[in-house]
C-alpha cells in the first residue's frame, strides 16, 4: 500500500493521543488511589462499591445506637443497684422492728423507714440526661407519683388497682431501636415491632417495683402500718415481712436481667465492629489500587510515551529531498 506523508502524520498523532490519554489515566490512579472515577469505567465494580458504602454507613448508625443504649443501660443499672441496697437497709430495719419489744423502738424505725421510702420513690423516678428511665415510653414526666388520695400511681394509674391482664398495655409499653438485627414487624405491615428483631431500650418501672398489692412501696407502707398497730401482731407482721422480702428479691432478679441486656449489647457491639472491618477490607479490594501497582503502570506508560515521542522526531523529518544532491 502506498504510504503518504499525510497518513503517516495522522496515524502518529492518533497514537500519541491515545498514549497520552492512558498516561493521564494512570497518573490519576496513582494520585487518587482509586481504581475508577465513574461507573462507566467499570460498571460492575462500581455497583458493588456503592453497595459496600451503603452497608458501611448503615453499620455506623447501628454502632451509634448501640453505644447510646449502653450508656442509658449503665445509668439504669446504677440506679437500680442503689434501690436494691436501699431495700436491704429497709429489710434490716423491719427485722429489728418485728423482733423489738418496745413501742418506742418501733416508732423510731417507722420514722427512719419513711425517709428511706421517699428515697426509693426518688430512685424509681431516676433520670438519664433529662429523660425518666423507668416509665416505659413516658420519658417526660415522673412515672411514679402520689395522687390526691396519697395513693401511688404509675403513669396516672393507681398501682394498687393495676392488674397484669387488664392493664397489659402498661407492661407491653416499649420503644425499640434498630441495631442491625433485621428490623421486622409482626404481623408484617403493622406497626408492632417483632421483639426479636430489635432492642428494647425502655424499662417499665412496674417490673421491678411490683404491681397490685405486691408493689414494694405499698408493702413498705403496709409494714409500717403493721409496726404502728397496737396491739402489735408479730405473726401478721411476719407475713407482710415475707412478702416484702419476696418483692425485694424480685428487684434483684430484674437487676440481673439488666446485666444480661448489657451482655447482649456488648455482643452486638463486637459483632458490628467486626462487620465494619470486613466491610473496609471489601471496599479496599474493590475500590483501591495498591500504590506499587499504580506506579508501575504509570512508569511503563511513561516509557512507552517517551519512546513514541523520540521515534516521531525521526519519522516525520526525513524525505528524499534530504538526499538529493
Amino acid at each position, binding site marked *: *500500500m*502506498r*504510504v*503518504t*506523508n*499525510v*497518513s503517516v502524520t*495522522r*496515524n502518529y498523532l*492518533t497514537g500519541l493521543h491515545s498514549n497520552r490519554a492512558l498516561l493521564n489515566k494512570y497518573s490519576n490512579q496513582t494520585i487518587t488511589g*482509586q481504581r*475508577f*472515577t*465513574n*461507573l*462507566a*469505567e467499570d*460498571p460492575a465494580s*462500581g*455497583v458493588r462499591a*456503592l*453497595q459496600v458504602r*451503603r452497608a458501611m*454507613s*448503615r453499620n*455506623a*448508625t447501628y454502632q*451509634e*445506637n448501640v453505644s*447510646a*443504649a449502653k450508656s442509658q443501660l449503665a445509668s439504669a443499672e446504677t440506679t437500680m443497684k442503689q434501690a436494691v441496697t436501699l431495700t436491704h437497709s429497709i429489710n434490716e430495719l423491719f427485722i429489728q422492728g418485728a423482733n423489738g419489744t418496745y413501742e418506742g423502738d418501733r416508732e423510731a424505725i417507722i420514722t427512719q423507714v419513711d425517709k428511706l421510702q421517699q428515697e426509693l420513690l426518688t430512685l424509681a423516678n431516676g433520670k438519664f440526661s433529662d429523660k425518666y428511665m423507668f*416509665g*416505659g*415510653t*413516658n*420519658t*417526660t*414526666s415522673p412515672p411514679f407519683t402520689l*395522687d390526691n388520695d396519697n395513693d401511688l400511681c404509675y*403513669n*396516672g394509674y393507681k398501682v394498687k388497682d393495676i392488674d397484669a391482664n387488664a*392493664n397489659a*398495655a*402498661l407492661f407491653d*409499653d*416499649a*420503644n*425499640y*431501636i*434498630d441495631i442491625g438485627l433485621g*428490623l421486622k*414487624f409482626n404481623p408484617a405491615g403493622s*406497626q*408492632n*415491632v417483632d421483639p426479636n428483631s*430489635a432492642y428494647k431500650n425502655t424499662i417499665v418501672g412496674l417490673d421491678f417495683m411490683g404491681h397490685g398489692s405486691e408493689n414494694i412501696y405499698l408493702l413498705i407502707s403496709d409494714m409500717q402500718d403493721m409496726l404502728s398497730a397496737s396491739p402489735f401482731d408479730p405473726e401478721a407482721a411476719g407475713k407482710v415481712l415475707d412478702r416484702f422480702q419476696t418483692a425485694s428479691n424480685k428487684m434483684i432478679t430484674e437487676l440481673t436481667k439488666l446485666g444480661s441486656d448489657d451482655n447482649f449489647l456488648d455482643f452486638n457491639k463486637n459483632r458490628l465492629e467486626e462487620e465494619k472491618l470486613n466491610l473496609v477490607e471489601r471496599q479496599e479490594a474493590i475500590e483501591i489500587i495498591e500504590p506499587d501497582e499504580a506506579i508501575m503502570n504509570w512508569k511503563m506508560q511513561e516509557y512507552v510515551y517517551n519512546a513514541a515521542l523520540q521515534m516521531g522526531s525521526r519519522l516525520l523529518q526525513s*524525505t*528524499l*529531498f534530504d538526499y*538529493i544532491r
Partner: protein
Amino acid sequence: MVRPTFASFEVARSAISVAQMGLNTVGHNISNVNTAGYTRQRVDQVSLSNSGINSKYRIYGANNQNAGQGALFNGISQIRDTYLDTRYRNEASTYGELSVKTSGLTELQSIIDEISTDGIGVKLAELISDLTKFAQSADDVELATVVRNSAKQFTQIVNKSANEIQTILDTQKNDLTISLENDVNATLEQIAYLNEKIREQHINGDPANELMDSRNLLIDQLSEFANIKVVNTPEKISDDITVSRLSIVMVDNTTAPASEFTLVDNKNYNTLKSTENADGTVSISLVEGGTDAVLKPDITDNFSKGAIKGYIDLINGCGNYAGDGENSFRGIPYYQKALDTFAQTFAATMNRLNSITNEESAATGGELKPFYDKNLFADGDGNTVDPLTGKSTITAANITISDMWGKEAWYLTTSKLSSSQQEDAREPVKDDNGNYVLDTEGNKTYVNQLTGDNINAMVKALTGSLNFSATNGNGDKFNFFTGTPEEFLTNMASTRGLDTSLCSTLLKASGTVISGYVDTRDSISAVSVDEEAINMMTYQNYYNAAARYMTTLDEALGTIIQSMGVVGR
C-alpha cells in the same frame, strides 16, 4: 514519403513542453501536501504517431521511413476512488452519531454518578440515619427538627439534580440548532454553489480539479451528520458535451421501500430546521433552501444514522417510558422521568406512613383508608395529586417539604398505636408546679405517649423494597423498578454507566474503521513527497535529454546548411 526537415524540431519542442508541464505539476503537488482534501494530480501525455496520413505514394512496412511525432500533453487529471469515498462516508455517519451520544451521556455523569461525588444517595443515607436516631427518643424536639432539616436538604438536592439535568437537555437542544444552522445548512448551500460553478467549468472543458476537491471535502463533512447518498447522473448539454450532475439525498432504509429526501440537486438545495414541541421533544423539518416553504414537516424518524440522529435520540429518547411512536433510546428525558418516578414514590410512601389511618376499619376487614392526610412532602403549590386525573403532581424539580411540616416539626407522626391502644397508654398532663391539669369536670387530662414505632416503620420502608411504578407515553402504568430507594439510584447510575461505556467502545471501534478507510484513500489520492521527488528528478532528466536532442538536431541541420556543398567554392 519524405519527412519534413523541421518536423524533428517539433518533436523536441513537444518533449520540452511536456517536461515543463510535468515539473509544474510536481511543484503544485508538493506545495499542496498538507492541503485538506487535496487529490494528487498527474500529467496525462500521449505519444503522437504518424499513422492516419493516407497518401497515394505512402510506403508502409519495413521501408517506412517515418518515426513518431513526439509527445502530446493531454491534460492534468486527478486520481480518486469514488468507491472508497462511499465507504468512508458510510462509516462517518456512524462515527458522528456515536460521538454525539457519548459526549451527551458523559455530561450526565456529574449529576447521576456517585462514585466520586456526593449526590442524592448520600443525602438519603443521612436522612435514614437521622430517622433511626430519632426513633430512639421520639419525644426529643431537637431531633425532630434535625429530621426535618435533613428531609429539606434531601428535597433540595433532588431539585438541584433535576434542574441540572434540564440544563443539559436545553444545552443539547441549542447545540442541535447551532449544528443544523452552521454545519449542515451552510454546507448544503456551499455544495449547491460549487455544483453550479463546477458544471460551468466542465461545460467549458476545464476539469476543475480544485473545485471538485473542495466539494468532496464538504460532502465528507456533511456525511457525519446524516446517512447521505451521492448520485452522479450524466446530463447531456449538446451533442458533444455531457457533464455530470451531482445530487445528494438522505436515505432512510428502515422504511420499505427506502425513503429518500433530496438535500442538494445541482444548484438547488434544501435545509433542515429543528423546532421544539409542546412536550419538550424536538422535530426536524425539511425546508426549501433560501425560502421558508416547508417541504416535509416531520422527518425526525427518518434519520437512521449520523450526528443529527444522535442529538434526536439524546433529546427525545425516553427509554422504557416511550409510548407508541416515541423514541425508545435511553436519552436525557429517560433520566428525567426516572428521577420524577423516584420523587413520586418516595413522597407517596412517606406521606402514606405519616397519615392517620383508621385501624379499626382495617381490623374488621375494611380498607385501610387514610383517616386524614398528613402529607410530609408536596409539590411547590402544596398539592400532591391532581384531583381530576388522580395522578401525582410531584416531580423531582418541585418536591419540597409540606408547609405544615415546615411550620411544625412535630407534624411527623411518631406513633401509630391503634386508638384503643392509645386509650390505655396515656399519661396525665402536669403543669409546671407538678400539679395535674384538670378539665372542667375535675378529671385528669391525658396526652398520647410518644413512642417511635412509626419512625421505625418509615426507616423500614426506606431501607426495604418498594415498587416504583410509572406511566408511559401511552398512559399505561408499568413497574419501572422494584427495590430499595438506594438501589434505584444505583440502578440509574449503572444504566448510564453501561450505556456510556458501550457508546464509547463502539466509538473507538468506528474510529479505527474510519482511520483504515482514510489511510486507504490517502494511499490512492494523497501526495507522497518522496514520490514527487523522484518525479521531479525524472522530469528534470527528461527535460535535459530533450534539450540535448534539440542541440543535436541543431548541429545536424547546421552541418547540412553550412558544411555541405562547400567543396570547390
